[in-house]
């Protein structure tokens, strides 16, 4: 069953007067429970495609909707472009988890607070007050699982790169998203540390059937996934 589908999507950036086409009709279909690697050279548009999948950005308007859903990103049967701003916010909050190359933790918050940030956003003030005990227990459990049980009160600045990325993964998984989007999660780490991050993702994938789309330009990293998609010249190719 297809969880998310990018159907012939196009994305063009305008630089002054020049149009820079980045995605020229990329099509990719990801099944529920799959672990897919998106491989491509730097500047090929991997991050761009990932942002489209995550509802952070929209595909070009003029190529969309010529009757057959072309130019659309469709999640669980529903086109993201048909969603209101509020529904898109909820989509990002509930269905998607993002992991970034540079972790992007909030420096003022502790490890525990960073990992709970997505849950706080999702539940709002009163919802959060009601479940804060539960959520706290879950965050602690997740962090424990990633070997950070002793570091709950630390600030990101006091952690190593690998540790930071594990906090970011905990944050992304906190709301149990259907889709985990990882943009070069090991790109900033040495091979051994990166390997352990991938191990953690793999464990989560095999045990709980987490759907993962992982962007990388590293063949070896891509090989950890079940399926590889290659992005080149603005289109996606299988294998």
């Amino acid at each position, binding site marked *: 069953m297809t969880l998310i589908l990018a159907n012939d999507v196009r994305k063009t950036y305008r630089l002054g007067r020049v149009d820079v086409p980045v995605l020229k009709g990329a099509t990719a279909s990801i099944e529920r429970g799959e672990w897919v690697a998106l491989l491509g050279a730097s500047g090929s548009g991997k991050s761009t495609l990932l942002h489209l999948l*995550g509802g952070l950005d929209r595909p070009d308007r003029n190529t969309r909707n010529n009757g057959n859903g072309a130019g659309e990103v469709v999640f669980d049967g529903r086109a993201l472009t048909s969603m209101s701003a509020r529904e898109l916010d909820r989509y990002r909050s509930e269905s998607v988890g993002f992991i970034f190359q540079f972790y992007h933790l909030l420096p003022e918050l502790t490890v525990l607070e960073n990992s709970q940030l997505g849950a*706080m956003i999702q539940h709002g003030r009163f919802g959060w007050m009601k479940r804060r005990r539960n959520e706290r227990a879950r965050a602690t459990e997740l962090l424990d699982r990633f070997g950070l049980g002793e570091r709950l009160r630390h600030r990101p600045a006091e952690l190593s790169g690998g540790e930071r990325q594990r906090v970011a993964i905990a944050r992304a998984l906190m709301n149990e998203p259907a889709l985990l989007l990882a943009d070069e999660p090991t790109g900033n780490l040495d091979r051994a540390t990166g390997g352990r991050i991938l191990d953690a993702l793999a464990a989560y994938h095999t045990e709980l059937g987490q759907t993962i789309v992982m962007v990388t330009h590293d063949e070896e990293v891509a090989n950890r996934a079940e399926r590889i998609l290659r992005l080149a010249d603005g289109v996606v190719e299988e294998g």
Partner: protein
Amino acid sequence: MYQALLTRRYLLSKVMPLLAIAAVMLCTAMVLIVWSVMAGFLTTLLDSGKTLMGDVEIEASLNGLPYYEDLRDRLEADPAIAASSATVKAQALLGVLGGSMGVQVIGIDGPSYHAVTGFGETLWWRHLDEPLRKDLNEEDLRLKIPEGFEEFGLHLTEVDRETGANVPAVVLGINVANANFATGGGWIVPFVFMPQEEVTLTVLPISRNGAPINVQAQRFPVANEMRTRFYEVDANFVLIRRDALQELLRMDEAQRIEDGFEFGVIEESEHGEESFSAPRVVGVDPARVSSVLVRAAEGVSLGELKERVRQVYAEFVLAHDDANPKPPDSSRIIIQTWDERPGIRNFVQAVKKETALLLALFAFISLTAVFLVCAIFWSMVSEKTKDIGVLRALGASRLGVAWLFLRYGTAIGVVGSILGGVIAVLIVRNINPIHEWIGRALGIVIWDPEMYLFADIPNQVEPTKAAIVLGAGVLFSVLGALLPAARAASLDPVRSLRFE
């Protein structure tokens, strides 16, 4: 929820917001101090100004008000009225220390006037047990004045040095004779000790039908000087015993003679003696006053009092309906509360306008705080662009991000305003010691007691004013945060995430 958490963390971990807090703090403190001192100034001034006015005045036209003792009896029988006093007002020329000047004289009956206005408290020359705080060399003349000295002023009566008889005397406003120097410490050094002097009062009596009669002049000893701390009064007013002024103004009781009588006609009597013709006495002209002052009983408002006085006066007119002359009817007198008097009203309005102007100026200056908060927040939004992108990627809405910064602005406003309020209260409460200290350390005297009439700067902060100023401080901070918050909300999440 994340907004509250981040606000707390941002407040404690950043230097910039501390600057914003400091700006809000200084602005609120500044406005609150100015407002409190100015308002306190006005209240003190009015309290002093009210000294000679009573609560409500019944004012008659130039022709005067007869049967005033009956009117007073009727007034004082009313439970809303605590005391009343009849006075005579006139313009006069005062000859003093070899010069002369125009003054306002009030003829009063000392004890009842004191009961209504408390003017006895303003009599300056009286015995003082202890020197004032700043009077280290005991220069205050009052330390040497015998006890009970103010009784002469209270009764406006002196004992004539030659005859030993009681004679009417005057009380001068402390600045009338220009014979005194007010020191910074609150006591007065006289160049000439006026209670040992005499003055000449010259008045122009007006007959019952409004025509001037011969100019009258008389010398009076000075019994005391009064200090109401209200400059208009202290520089222009002279009090005198009422009977003396009534006599001068021909407002005392007199015989009325037949109409059309010609003076200077020589008549021959039955016995053949010649004499000037004598007018036939046809009645008595009662003594008159120009106004009756009334003091309200405890807990009676000015409005209620005025209404009661109006009714009593109407009854009074009715009761004297068949008298000759009749008292002026209600339409020909003015009944007004003390703050309705034109002089006071204009003055109060002037001071209020000045205060408003000053406040507007300072509020305008406080707008800089809005811009400061705005600038600081603007740069914070730039600095936090990536975090904003992360929040959006985690599902935060635009409104949620805007609220983060608005909330943060509110927090800064609340903290800054409260600190500013505390500082303002501390400064205003201790404004006099602080002022003294500045005077000693830097030789600068900002508050000139001569100019402002009070030895002390008003030092009270009204809670309502504090609440208004603090509220405005919060509002200004929120206003300053508005634009950056809108910018944060409008940021494109992808661009924010790519932002270096």
